[in-house]
C-alpha cells in the first residue's frame, strides 16, 4: 500500500479547517500534545502538522488565487528517514506512512533540515520532532464506522477538496483523480518521490473583461440609450419578444436622437458576455 492524500487546488477555499481539525485530533491523540507557546498572547506559536499558504498564480487579468495546504508528503524516498541518526524516523513498509518514534528522537533537527516541505516541527516542550501521521491512530481504528476511518483533515474539509487513499491501487479514488486531473507533486526535482498529489485548477472558459464605462461617456443621452439597450437585451433574454415592444424599444432609441453611433456600441453588441 502507498497511502497518501490528494488535494484539489480547484475547490480548496483556504479556510484552514483541515489544519484546525488536524491539530484538534492529533494534540489529543497518540502523537500529542502539539504544544503551543504563548497561545493567547501577542506572538502565539506552536506545532502544526498541516499549514495552508495562499498564492496568486499568473498575472491580471488571468490571475487566480491558489490555496496550498501542506502536510507530510510521505515520500517514497524520504530524506528525513535517511538522515535520522537515531532511527526515530521511519517509513512503514506496509503502508508507506512516515512516522517519528518520539521515545527515540534526540531532537537534532536534521530531519527538518532535510525536508523540503516543512512537514516536521520540533516540539520545544518535549524536545522531539513531530509530524503528520496520516492519522494512523484513526484510519485503522475498527471501533469507528468505516466512513470515519480517514484522516481528520479529509473528513472535515467543507469543500471536499481532500481525498485519502491508496496510490498503489490504480482504481482508487486518489489514483483516478490524479490520472484524470493531472495531479502534480511538489518539488519533484529533489527526487524524494513525494506521494501526495495536488490537482491543478480546472481550465475554465476565459471571461473577457472591459474597462467599466464612466457615466459621463456619451453624456446624458448615452446613459439613457445604454439603459434602454440593456432593457431590450433583458427582454430578449427572457423571451419577451412580441413586435410592439421590440418596435417601441427601437423607436425609443431613435426618439432620443442617438443618430450617431454610441461609443463602444458596435463592439459591445458583437461581444457576448461583456461585463459592465
Amino acid at each position, binding site marked *: 500500500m502507498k497511502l497518501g492524500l490528494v488535494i484539489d487546488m480547484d475547490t480548496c477555499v483556504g479556510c484552514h479547517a483541515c489544519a484546525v481539525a488536524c491539530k484538534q485530533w492529533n494534540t489529543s491523540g497518540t502523537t500529542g500534545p502539539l504544544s503551543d507557546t504563548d497561545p493567547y498572547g501577542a506572538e502565539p506559536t506552536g506545532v502544526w502538522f498541516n499549514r495552508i499558504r495562499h498564492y496568486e498564480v*499568473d498575472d491580471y487579468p488571468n490571475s487566480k488565487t491558489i490555496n496550498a495546504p501542506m502536510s507530510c508528503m510521505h515520500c517514497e524516498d524520504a530524506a528525513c528517514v535517511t538522515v535520522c541518526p*537515531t532511527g526515530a524516523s521511519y517509513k512503514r513498509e506496509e503502508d508507506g506512512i512516515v512516522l517519528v518514534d518520539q521515545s527515540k*528522537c534526540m531532537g537534532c533537527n536534521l530531519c527538518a533540515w*532535510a525536508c*523540503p516541505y516543512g512537514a516536521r516541527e520540533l516540539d520545544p516542550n*518535549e524536545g522531539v520532532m513531530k509530524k503528520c501521521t496520516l492519522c494512523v491512530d484513526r484510519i485503522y481504528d475498527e471501533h469507528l464506522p468505516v466512513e470515519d476511518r480517514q484522516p481528520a483533515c479529509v473528513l472535515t474539509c467543507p469543500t471536499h477538496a481532500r481525498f485519502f487513499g491508496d496510490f498503489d491501487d490504480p482504481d482508487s479514488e486518489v489514483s483516478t483523480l490524479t490520472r484524470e486531473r493531472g495531479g502534480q507533486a511538489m518539488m519533484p526535482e529533489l527526487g524524494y518521490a513525494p506521494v501526495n498529489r495536488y490537482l491543478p485548477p480546472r481550465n475554465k472558459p476565459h471571461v473577457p473583461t472591459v474597462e467599466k464605462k464612466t457615466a459621463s461617456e456619451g453624456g446624458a443621452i448615452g446613459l439613457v440609450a445604454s439603459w434602454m439597450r440593456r432593457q431590450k437585451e433583458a427582454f430578449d433574454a427572457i423571451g419577451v419578444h412580441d413586435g410592439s415592444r421590440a418596435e417601441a424599444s427601437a423607436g425609443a432609441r431613435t426618439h432620443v436622437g442617438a443618430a450617431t453611433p454610441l461609443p463602444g456600441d458596435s463592439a459591445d453588441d458583437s461581444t457576448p458576455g461583456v461585463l459592465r
Partner: protein
Amino acid sequence: MNPAFSVIFFTVTAGAGYGLLILLAFARIAGLAPDISPDQYTATGLLGLLLVTAGLLSSTFHLANPKNAWRSFTRFRTSWLSREAVFAVVFYPVAVLWLISEWLFGNTGLSVFLGLVSATLALIVLVCTAMIYASLKTIRQWHTSLTPVNFVLLGLSLGALFFLLVLVSQSLPIGRLVSTAVVLLVVSTLAKLVYFHWIGQPAGPTINTALGFTRATVRLLDVGHSSGTFHTREFGYQVARAKLIWIRVASITLAFALPLLFVSGLVGEVGGAHVVLAAIAAYVGVFLERWLFFAEARHVVNLYHGSQRT
C-alpha cells in the same frame, strides 16, 4: 539557516583539533617537526584531544533531547550524523593508544602506525561532519563537494597554526611547518573564494516547481501564520546584504590574509608574536566563516514563505 553557536563552536574547534592531530601524525614522517621530543609530542596530542572533546561536548548542546544521543550510533548505514558519531567515538581509543605508546616508548614504528590510523580516522570524522551538511539537497549552499573540501582544509589550516604555536612555545624549529601552513592557507583561501562565487549563482528549486505551477508567475499572498513558526525561526534567518559582505571581508581577512601575512615572513622573521597573532586571527576568522556558512544558507522551505521575488 539559524547560526547556532554550539554547532559553530563544535565544527570550528573540533575541526582545528582533528587538523592538529592529523599534522602531528605526520610530524616526523614528513619532517614537519623532526626534533619534537616524545613528551612534547604527547602534550601536543593532548591539546588536540582537548580541542576535539570541547567541540564534541558543545555539539550536544544543540540537541533538544540529549538523553537519546546514544541512539545516534545506530543508523551508521544511512545517516552521516550517525557515521560522524561512530567515527568520533572510534577515534578516541586509537588516539589515546597512539599518545600512550609515544609517551612510553617514544618514536617507534608502533607510534607511527597508530598515528597514521588516528589521522585517517580524524580525516574521516571531518568529512562526515561536512557531509551532514553537504548531503542536504534542500540547502543548495551546502549541497556541494566544496563543503567537505572547505571543512577539511580549514581544519588543517587551523591545526597547522595551533601546531606552530606549540613548536614556537617549545623553541623548536618551525621551517617545514611554516611552509605547510602557508600552502594550506593559500589553498583554503582559493577554495573558499570558489565557494563564495559558486553560491552567488542562482540554482535549485523555484516557487514554480515548489507549487507545480511552472507556466506562470507565482506570488505569495499570505503565509497563513500570524506570528513566527518553527520554520521561520530555524530557516528564516536573514541578514542584511551589506552586513553579509562586510562579514565576508572580515572573515577572509582574519582567517586567511592576516595569518598568511604573519607566517609568510612578509612582516619580519616568523617569531612567537607572529604565530600567536596568526592563530588568534585565524580562529576568529574561521568562526566568522562558519557563521556565514549557516547565515548564507537558504532552505527551500523559504520559497513557500515568499523568499523568491516574482
